[in-house]
C-alpha cells in the first residue's frame, strides 16, 4: 500500500463506488417497473414500438408461461441465434460490409465464437480487427451482445416472479421480458453511453482502416470500425467481447481516463442495480440491499488486495536495486502489461470489476499480473460469477447460493428452510446442486483435459505453475461465462475452441434452466408469512453467513487448483 493508492488512485476508487451506488436506486427502480409491467418514463415513446414488435411477431405479452414453456422459448431463441451467428461467421467472406475481404471463419472457431456470444461469455479466440468483418461485428456479434444480455435479465425476472407468486402456474412471458429488457433498459443506456464514448474519441466509422507511414518509413495499417456502438453494449451487457484484440486496452476502444471511468461504471451498473430491482419486486427492499452488500463485501477487499499486490511489485526486482515505490515520476509496482494512461489502480479495479461481473473485457493483461494479483480475477470467477456477475445471470447465480445458504442456515434455526416465505425442498436443492455442480465440473474436467492431452499442452506459452494457471483461467472463464482471457494461451485451436465452447454451453444453460425450474417450483408454492421464528435474510448476520457459504464452496472446490497455480507461483516468487 503506497501513496498512490491512498492518493489519487484511492480517490478514483472511492469516486467509482459513489457513482456506481448512486445509480443503483434510480436504475434499479426503473428496471423493477419494467419487469413488473408498469409504465416508465420511457413508455410514452417506446410503448408503440413495443406493441408493434409484439404484433409483428404474433406474441401475446400477457400470456403466462410455465417454467418449462419459458425455458423452451429461451432455448429456441438461443439456438436460432447460434445457428444464425454460425452461418454469418462461416459465410462472412461473401456477405456485405467486408472491405478488407476477410475470409469466413474455420468451423471450430465459428462454433466457439457463436457459442461464446449467445451465452454472454464473449470469449474471443480470435483477434477482432483482423478476423471479423464489419457485418459480422454489427449484425452478428453486437446483436447477440444485446440478446444474450437480455436473455439473462429475462431469466432473472422470471425467477424473481416465481419467488413472489403464490400457487401460480406461470412465471411471466419470455418474449415480453426479452423485448422489454432490450427496449427499455439496454438500448437507451447503450445509446447514451455510445454517444459519450464517441465524443471522447472512441471511433465509430464504416471505414475499414487507414494506412499510416511511421517515422521508420514502414507502412502501418490502423484498423477502424463501428467501435463506439459496440463498446457501449459490450460494457453494459457484461459481454466484454472487444472490437479489437487487446480489448479496452486499445486507445480506440478506451482512449482516456474518463472513458475508462465510464466503461468501468457501465460494467457493474446493471448487475448492482438489479439487486435493488429484486428488492422492489419481492416487496422488501432490504432483501435486495442485503445481496448487494454481500457482493460488495467480497468484491471490495479482493479488489483492494489485488491492487495492493500489483502496487507491491516483484521482490526480485527490488533485490536488484530497482525502485518500485510510487512517486510523482513513476507509478511504481508491477506495470508490466498495463497501460500507462490507466496505471495500476485503474487496471486493478478493472481486472476485479470485469471478472466479478461476467464481463471479461480487459484494459490490462492479466497474465502479467503478480501471482496473487492475478489470483484475484481468477477467484472472482471461481465464485461462480455471482459477485455482481453478468446482467441477470449474476443475481440469479447469487440466488442459487442464497438457496443453499438458506437451506443450511434455515435448519439451524429449527425450521425446514424457507426463503421469502417459500419452502426450499428437494426439488429446489436438486436444481441448485446442478447449477453449482455444472460449471465446477467443466472447470475441473476441462483443465484436466488441457494439461493431460497433447492438444491442450500445445497451447501453453509458459511452463510450470504459470502454464497451469493459463489453462485453468481459460476453463474457469468459459465455464462461468466470463470470457476474460489470461492471455498466454493460444486458444484458437480445434481442441480449445471445442472444449471451451462446450464449457460455455454447459456453464450457461445448466445454470439457467435450473434457475427457471426453481422459479417455477417456488411460484407453485404457498407463501408462509414471516414471524420471529423465520430466518431473517436481510440482516448483516445473514449476509455474513451467505459470504461464508459462498467463499467456502468456492475455496473447497478450487483449493487444490489454486494451490498448484497462483499460490505456488507466489510462494516460489517470495521464496526465491
Amino acid at each position, binding site marked *: 500500500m503506497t501513496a498512490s493508492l491512498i492518493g489519487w488512485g484511492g480517490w478514483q476508487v472511492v469516486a467509482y463506488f459513489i457513482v456506481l451506488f448512486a445509480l443503483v436506486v434510480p436504475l434499479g427502480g426503473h428496471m423493477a417497473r419494467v419487469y413488473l409491467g408498469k409504465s416508465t418514463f420511457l413508455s410514452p415513446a417506446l410503448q408503440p414500438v413495443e406493441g408493434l414488435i409484439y404484433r409483428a411477431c404474433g406474441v401475446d405479452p400477457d400470456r403466462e408461461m410455465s417454467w418449462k414453456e419459458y425455458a423452451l422459448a429461451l432455448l429456441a431463441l438461443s439456438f436460432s441465434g447460434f445457428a444464425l451467428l454460425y452461418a454469418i461467421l462461416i459465410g462472412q467472406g461473401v456477405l456485405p460490409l467486408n472491405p478488407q475481404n476477410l475470409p469466413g471463419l474455420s468451423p471450430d472457431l465459428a462454433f466457439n465464437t457463436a457459442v461464446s456470444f449467445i451465452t454472454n461469455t464473449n470469449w474471443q479466440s480470435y483477434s477482432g480487427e483482423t478476423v471479423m468483418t464489419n457485418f459480422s461485428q454489427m449484425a452478428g456479434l453486437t446483436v447477440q451482445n444485446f440478446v444474450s444480455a437480455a436473455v439473462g435479465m429475462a431469466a432473472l425476472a422470471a425467477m424473481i416472479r416465481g419467488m413472489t407468486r403464490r400457487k401460480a402456474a406461470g412465471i411471466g412471458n419470455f418474449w415480453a421480458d426479452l423485448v422489454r429488457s432490450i427496449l427499455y433498459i439496454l438500448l437507451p443506456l447503450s445509446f447514451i453511453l455510445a454517444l459519450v464514448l464517441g465524443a471522447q474519441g472512441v471511433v465509430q466509422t464504416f471505414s475499414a482502416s487507414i494506412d499510416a507511414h511511421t517515422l521508420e518509413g514502414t507502412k502501418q495499417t490502423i484498423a477502424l470500425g463501428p467501435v463506439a456502438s459496440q463498446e457501449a453494449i459490450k460494457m453494459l451487457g457484461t459481454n466484454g467481447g472487444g472490437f479489437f484484440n487487446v480489448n479496452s486496452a486499445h486507445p480506440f476502444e478506451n482512449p482516456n481516463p474518463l472513458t475508462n471511468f465510464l466503461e468501468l461504471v457501465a460494467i457493474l451498473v446493471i448487475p448492482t442495480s438489479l439487486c435493488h430491482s429484486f428488492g422492489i419486486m419481492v416487496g422488501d427492499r432490504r432483501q435486495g440491499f442485503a445481496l448487494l452488500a454481500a457482493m460488495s463485501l467480497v468484491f471490495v477487499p479482493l479488489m483492494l488486495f489485488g491492487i495492493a499486490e500489483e502496487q507491491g511489485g516483484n521482490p526480485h526486482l527490488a533485490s536488484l536495486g530497482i525502485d518500485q515505490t510510487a512517486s510523482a515520476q513513476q507509478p511504481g509496482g508491477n506495470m508490466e502489461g498495463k497501460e500507462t494512461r490507466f496505471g495500476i489502480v485503474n487496471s486493478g479495479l478493472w481486472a476485479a470489476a470485469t471478472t466479478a461481473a461476467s464481463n471479461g473485457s480487459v484494459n490490462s493483461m492479466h497474465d502479467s499480473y503478480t501471482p496473487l494479483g492475478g489470483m484475484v480475477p481468477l477467484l472472482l470467477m471461481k465464485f461462480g460469477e455471482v459477485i455482481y456477475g453478468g446482467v441477470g445471470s449474476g443475481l440469479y447465480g447469487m440466488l442459487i447460493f442464497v438457496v443453499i445458504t438458506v437451506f443450511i442456515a434455515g435448519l439451524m434455526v429449527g425450521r425446514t428452510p424457507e426463503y421469502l416465505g417459500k419452502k426450499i425442498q428437494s426439488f429446489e436443492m436438486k436444481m441448485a446442486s446442478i447449477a453449482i455442480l455444472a460449471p465446477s465440473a467443466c472447470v475441473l474436467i476441462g483443465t484436466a483435459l488441457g494439461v493431460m492431452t497433447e492438444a491442450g499442452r500445445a497451447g501453453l506459452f509458459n511452463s510450470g505453475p504459470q502454464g497451469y494457471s493459463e489453462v485453468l483461467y481459460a476453463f474457469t472463464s468459459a465455464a462461468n461465462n466470463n470470457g476474460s482471457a489470461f492471455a498466454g494461451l493460444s486458444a484458437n485451436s480445434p481442441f480449445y475452441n471445442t472444449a471451451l465452447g462446450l464449457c460455455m454451453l454447459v456453464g450457461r444453460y445448466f445454470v439457467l434452466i435450473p434457475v427457471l425450474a426453481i422459479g417455477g417450483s417456488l411460484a407453485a408454492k404457498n407463501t408462509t408469512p414471516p414471524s*420471529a421464528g423465520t430466518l431473517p435474510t436481510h440482516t448483516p448476520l445473514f449476509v455474513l453467513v451467505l459470504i461464508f457459504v459462498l467463499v467456502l464452496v468456492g475455496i473447497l472446490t478450487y483449493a487444490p487448483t489454486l494451490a498448484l497455480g497462483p499460490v505456488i507461483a507466489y510462494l516460489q516468487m517470495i521464496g526465491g
Partner: protein
Amino acid sequence: MSQKKHIKSRNPFRGADVGLAMRLSIVRLTPLYQARNPVMFVVFVGSILTTAILTIMLVTPARVVGGGLPVWFVAWVTFWLWFTLLFANFAEAIAEGKGRAQADSLKKARRDVAARKLEKASDHSKQHSVPANTLRKGDLVLIEAGDFVPADGQVIDGIASVDESAVTGESAPVIRESGGDRDAVTGGTRVLSDWIVVRVTSDPGESFLDRMIGLVESARRQKTPNEIALSILLAALTIVFLLVCATLLPFSAFSVTQAGAGSVISVTVLIALLVCLIPTTIGGLLSAIGISGMQRLISANVIATSGRAVEAAGDINVLLLDKTGTITFGNRQAVEFYPAPGVTRQQLAEAAELSSLADETPEGRSIVTLARRLFGLPERNPKDLAATFIPFSAEQRISGIVINERHIMKGAGDAIARLVALKGGFCGPEIMREVEEIARKGGTPLMVAEGPQVLGVVYLKDIVKPEIKTRLADLRKMGIKSVMITGDNPLTAAAIASEAGVDDFVAEATPETKLKYIRKMQEGGELVAMVGDGTNDAPALAQSDVAVAMNSGTQAAKEAGNMVDLDSDPTKLIEIVEIGKQLLMTRGALTTFSISNDLAKYFAIIPAAFAGTYPALAKLNVMGLASPESAILSAVIFNALIIIALVPLALKGVKYRAESAEQLLTRNVLFYGLGGVLTPFIGIKLIDLMLAAAGLT
C-alpha cells in the same frame, strides 16, 4: 417428566445395547446396505480400493501400486477408513437400539390372551373363548375385571377402569366407557374393575401396538422430505469432491513434469483426501439424528405415525390449543358469592352449599369448600340428611336439593330465571348485572334460587394454569402464534385469552368453525398444529399439518391425527414443537460443522501431497505437522474420530432454547460454523503430536 429427561441427558447411550450396536456396525458393511447413503458408499468403495492396494503391496515385492508410499502408511490409512465406516454404522445402530429397547417393552404388552367373544352385545351368556390373535375387525368381546384387552377397540357397552401403564407408562388407571370421547381401548392394557363390551377395530397385526412397535424399531424407515433434500446437497458436495480428487491426478502429473521433481500423487493419498473432504460427519450421523428425533418424541410418550410429522412440528407457526385442560385447569372453581338484594352473603353461601352437597362435579365440590371456608359451616354428609337430591339434567340444566320443604336449585342464569318465573318470582336487575359482570371477567355465573326467590350468584372462575403464560411467551419468541379454542361465548373467551396471553381465540367453537379457521390459516401459508380427542375433532385433525390425538380419545381422532399422545396431555404439543425444532437444528448444525471442517483438512493434506513436487508449499503447513505421512494420517484419523465424538450430540440433539431465529442463528453459526473451522486445526495437530510421540512418523 422433566426428571426423566434429566437423567437421559447424562448418558445418551442409556437404554441401548452397545454390544449389539457394535455387532451391527460390522454386519452392515455390505455394499447393499452402504449404497443407501451415497456419502458413506464413497468411503466404502475407497476403503476397498486401499485394501486392494495394500494387499498387492504386501504380496508383490516391487510395491509399484503404492506410489512409493511405505506399507505401514497405506495400512494405517486403510485401517482408519474402515473405522470411519464402522463409526457411522455404530451411530445408526445405537440410535436404533434405543428404539428397540422401547419396542421390546411394548412387545411384552402384546401377549396372547384368550378373549371372550360375544355374539350379541346385550347377551353376555353366549361367549366363546378364542385366542386374541384371531379377532377380526367388528368382533365383539367382553372384558371383565382382571382381563387384558385383547385388541384395539371401541367400548360399546359398560364402563370400566383400565390400567394403561403398559402403553403409556402412566400408573393411574383411566375410565373407559361407551359413548362420548373416552370409548377407545388399546390392546395390551388391563381392565381393573367392572366390565366393558368392546367392538374390535383392528385386524391382527394392525393394532396400535403393532404399529408403534413397527415405528420404533424399524431400521428401514423412510427418509423424511427434509432429509431427502439434505441428502441431495450432500450427494452434490460428494460429486464436487470426487471431481476435485479425480482431476488432481492429472494436475499432479502435469506439475511433476513441469517441476521435474517429486512423484505423482498416489491413489491412496487421493482416497484419503476424498474421504476427508466429503461430508462424512453429517453423512454418517444423518440417519442417527433422524432416528433419535423420533426417540425423543417417544420418550415424551408421543407416537408419530411418520418422521415427516416430526419435521413438520418444527415448522409450525400456529398452535391451536383447547382452552379446557390446556390453558385453564379443566374445572371451574367457585371464588365468590354475590347475594341478591335483601339476602346476606352467608344465606346465599349456605343455600349454595346445601344444593351442592350431592354434586360430585369439581365445580360443585368447589362451592362446598368455599362456603365452608368463608363461613365455617360444619361438615355434613348428604347421606345423613333427610333430603332429596335433584340431579343435574342436561335438559333442565339445573340441579338442587329438597330439604325440610326448602327447594334450593342452582344452575345457569337463564335456566333459573325460567324456573323462578314459573313459580311466580322474578330476577332483579341487580342480579342480572352481576351475571353480566362475571361473564365479562371470563367467569361462569351460577344462579341460586330458593322457591321463587333468587338468592344470588356464585362466581365460578376458570383458573388459568400458572405456567402456561411463560410457555406461551416462549412460543411467541419462537415465532409461533397461539390460538385458544373454546366453546365459551366471545366475552368470556376474550377475558381468558387476555389473562393467559394467547394471541388469538376462537369462541363458541364448533367442529366446523375449527375446520374453517385452520383452512383460513393454511390458505395464508401458515402451518397449523392442533390437539384433539373427540370424534368431532377428526375433520380438523385431518386438516391440520400436525395433529396430536389424545390416547384417551376416540379411534376416529387417532386415525385422523398424525401423532398420538399417550399421556393425553394437551400441553404436550409445545414439547412436540420443540422436539421438531431440535431435530432440524441438529441436522443443520452438524451439516455446517461437517462442511466447515474441510478447510483445515486441505491445509493438512495439500502441502503433504505435493511436498515432493513443490517444496515451497510447505509454507501452507500452518499446523506444523511432523511429516507428510503424519499430516495425511492425522486428517484421516480426525475425520473418523469426529463421527464417534459427535454421536452423543446426534442422539441428544443440540441444545434448544426458546429464542428468535436471529439469536439461534448467531449462536449456532458461531458454535458450529466457526467452531467447525477451528476444531479440526486443533484436533489434527493433537493427533499429529500423538502419532509423533508414539514414534509412528
